[in-house]
């Protein structure tokens, strides 16, 4: 442990106490303000569970029905609350079951600490029962990981884990703790970590870069903002709003940035990317200045890079230096926390309205409305559409719900049509696209924001990947609202097969069980809707319910999500049908 040199602040509780490593872990969690964690017990983590039993009044442990569920629940909790999510598992299969959640949290910059048990130190490397090299396995999908083999290491490493998970660009940290380190006793004292000497989480803003950015902004005729999750993680919502209102610059968002600005704000011009709005995609290739704020130019956002915003100058506000010039060249890079850098930028920006430029977005919106949106949310055909379901949820919840989506067509429709008034309200698996994310993430989201309505929107495919977590909802009577948009297909893959594989529907037709009966098996109030007449009243009933509620909506089987930028195509080649 010599290598880890950390700056520390005076801990409140300096008194040294002799205790086991397992008990120390609990004290570390409490010192970090953790009140809830998600996990699953097993041999190598039993000493910690024994302590959790003793500390039940201070620390709520939720037994998910699968460790993947624990990781996603911790993610949902973190995303909605801005706090660090915590998941725990035993060694071997328990640990490997966390990997999807780690990868998801890594690519979506979610602060999470995962604690895994490990075989006793003496058995390491012996292929002992349930020994797996979780450090090796998790390295590429964690911001940091560490194997504790001595009890004395626990306080320092746990402090470092929580610090790293949330510092700068957040991410998942895994701490693997051998069984002997859980059992052995030592003198416990805890000091929070406030810095690590080899890690500079937030670059200092450079006044010159901010001036250069302001200059480009003030001279641009057709500027456009694309913001991402960095605005939410950096708590820069107010600063962004002030910037767009003063400068009059139309602002679009990536799915990870959704909800940072009110959906109905007149300067909010919608979503970019593969299934984003027509205007912001097309006009990316017509603007003269692209201002990227806390986003990383994912390929689902940019389409073909060679033809992405080539005519425009680019300003990139970014906390992670490695993202600058990674995919798109930045003429001006402004490093730092968006709250700070946008705050410094604001006084240098001239007031403007950009009315003509705005009208371009309005015209494009009208085209999209007539060609796509109208039919999606006010359909005249017989079959129900996913879009009208989302629209009814907006109406019933007054745009106030936290919307948790899984992955597929319903996710894209959910992100396109869900409306938000409050930040941190769109919880989805953006970077990894993890089917099975939504149900457990909704559990975490509900527990992270008990006063808010949480609605999970899930496809019939993804729902069955983590359906076992209904057990948690039932056991704790968590008032999560679950909406399965059932098209009896793996819809998004089927759409690609229709468009690009001559309708060869290989393994995308779903033979589904009776979802209502399954929910009833968990004693969850449930309904199935297949007629338009029943939709509105049932959604109202669902939102009004104080209990968990399951709603299956039978939607059109072969609907497609449009607009669409086909994979590898340019954003200007976006298709409306």
């Amino acid at each position, binding site marked *: 442990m010599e290598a880890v040199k950390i*700056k520390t602040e005076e801990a409140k509780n300096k008194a040294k106490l002799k205790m086991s490593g397992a008990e120390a872990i609990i004290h570390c969690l409490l010192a970090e303000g953790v009140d809830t964690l998600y996990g699953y017990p097993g041999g190598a983590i039993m000493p910690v569970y024994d302590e959790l039993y003793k500390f039940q009044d201070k620390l709520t442990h939720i037994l998910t029905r699968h460790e993947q569920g624990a990781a996603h629940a911790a993610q949902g909790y973190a995303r909605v609350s801005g706090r660090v999510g915590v998941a725990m598992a035993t060694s071997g299969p328990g640990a490997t079951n966390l990997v999807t959640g780690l990868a998801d949290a890594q690519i979506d910059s979610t602060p999470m600490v995962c604690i895994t048990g490990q075989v006793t130190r003496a058995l390491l490397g012996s292929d002992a029962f349930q020994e797996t090299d979780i*450090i090796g396995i998790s*390295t*590429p999908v964690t911001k940091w990981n560490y194997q504790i083999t001595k009890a004395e290491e626990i306080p320092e490493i746990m402090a470092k884990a929580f610090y790293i998970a949330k510092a700068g660009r957040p991410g998942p940290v895994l701490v693997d703790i051998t069984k002997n380190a859980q059992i052995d006793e030592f003198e416990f004292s805890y000091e929070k970590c406030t*810095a690590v000497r*080899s890690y500079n989480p937030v670059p200092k803003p450079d006044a010159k870069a901010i001036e250069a950015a302001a200059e480009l902004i003030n001279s641009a005729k057709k500027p456009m903002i694309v913001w991402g999750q960095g605005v939410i993680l950096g708590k820069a919502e107010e600063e962004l709003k002030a910037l767009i209102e003063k400068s009059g610059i139309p602002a679009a968002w990536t799915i990870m940035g959704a909800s940072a600005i009110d959906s109905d704000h007149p300067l909010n011009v919608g979503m970019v990317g593969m299934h984003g709005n027509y205007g912001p995609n097309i006009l990316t290739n017509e603007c003269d200045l692209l201002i990227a704020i806390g986003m990383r130019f994912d390929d689902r956002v940019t389409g073909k890079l060679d033809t992405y915003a080539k005519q425009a100058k680019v300003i990139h506000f970014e906390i*992670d*230096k490695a993202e600058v010039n990674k995919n798109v060249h930045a003429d001006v890079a402004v490093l730092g926390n968006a709250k700070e850098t946008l705050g410094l930028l604001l006084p240098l920006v001239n007031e403007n309205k950009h009315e003509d430029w705005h009208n371009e977005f309005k015209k494009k919106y009208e085209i999209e409305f007539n060609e796509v949106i109208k039919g999606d949310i006010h359909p005249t055909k017989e079959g129900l559409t996913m879009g009208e379901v989302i629209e009814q949820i907006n109406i019933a919840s007054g745009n106030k719900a936290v919307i948790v989506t899984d992955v597929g067509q319903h996710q894209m429709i959910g992100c396109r049509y869900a409306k938000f008034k409050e930040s941190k309200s769109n919880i989805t698996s953006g970077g990894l696209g993890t089917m099975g994310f939504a149900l457990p993430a909704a559990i975490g989201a509900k527990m992270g924001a008990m006063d808010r309505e949480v609605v999970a929107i899930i496809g019939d495919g993804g729902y069955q990947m983590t359906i076992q977590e209904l057990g948690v909802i039932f056991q704790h009577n968590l008032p999560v609202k679950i909406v399965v948009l059932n098209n009896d297909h793996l819809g998004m893959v089927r759409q690609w097969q229709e468009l690009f594989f001559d309708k060869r529907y290989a393994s995308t037709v779903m033979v589904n069980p009776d979802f209502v009966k399954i929910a009833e098996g968990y004693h969850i109030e449930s309904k199935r809707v297949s007629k338009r007449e029943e939709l509105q009243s049932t959604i109202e009933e669902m939102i009004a319910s104080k209990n968990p509620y399951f709603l299956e909506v039978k939607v059109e089987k072969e609907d497609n999500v449009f607009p669409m930028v086909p994979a590898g195509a340019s954003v200007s080649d976006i298709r409306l049908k």
Partner: protein
Amino acid sequence: MKKQQWFTISVYSENNVGLLNRISGIFLKRHINIESLNVSKSEIDGVSKFTIVVHTTEKWVRNIVGQIEKQIEVIKAFYHTDEETIYQESALFKIASNLLFDERQIQNIIKDNNSQIVTVAREFFVIAKSGRRNEIDDMYEQLKPYGIMQFVRSGRISVSKDIMQITGLLKEFYEEA
């Protein structure tokens, strides 16, 4: 930017067991081969230095260095072209002892290549040679006809011509503390 060339990446880091795995994963994920790797202590107490040689484009080396530098235990990472560094590799040649006496030319090869005999035993002797990769390759070709019992070449070690601002960074950290 698109031209492939040799780059030397220098990484200053905390001395942590898992770090090598983390760093090599960054190359693996991008399908970039590590041509040579050397880990040693550095000019700063308690700080390790990785010297990694790759053959790639400037765009990729910059991307990789960015990814390396953001690893928690990495203090700073740099990349340099061959012109910007002083670099060397070392090699050991194990040759049958009788050749030293039977083949007079071998003595000349040792002298002409500025190499030294580091040990002589009854069965074999060992020549050490430091220099650029091509110099070592040349010597290898010269010795090859006589029979080389064993050959090994180290990874590149290098120092940059410009200063690498590490000490300053660390000092700043402690001053702020």
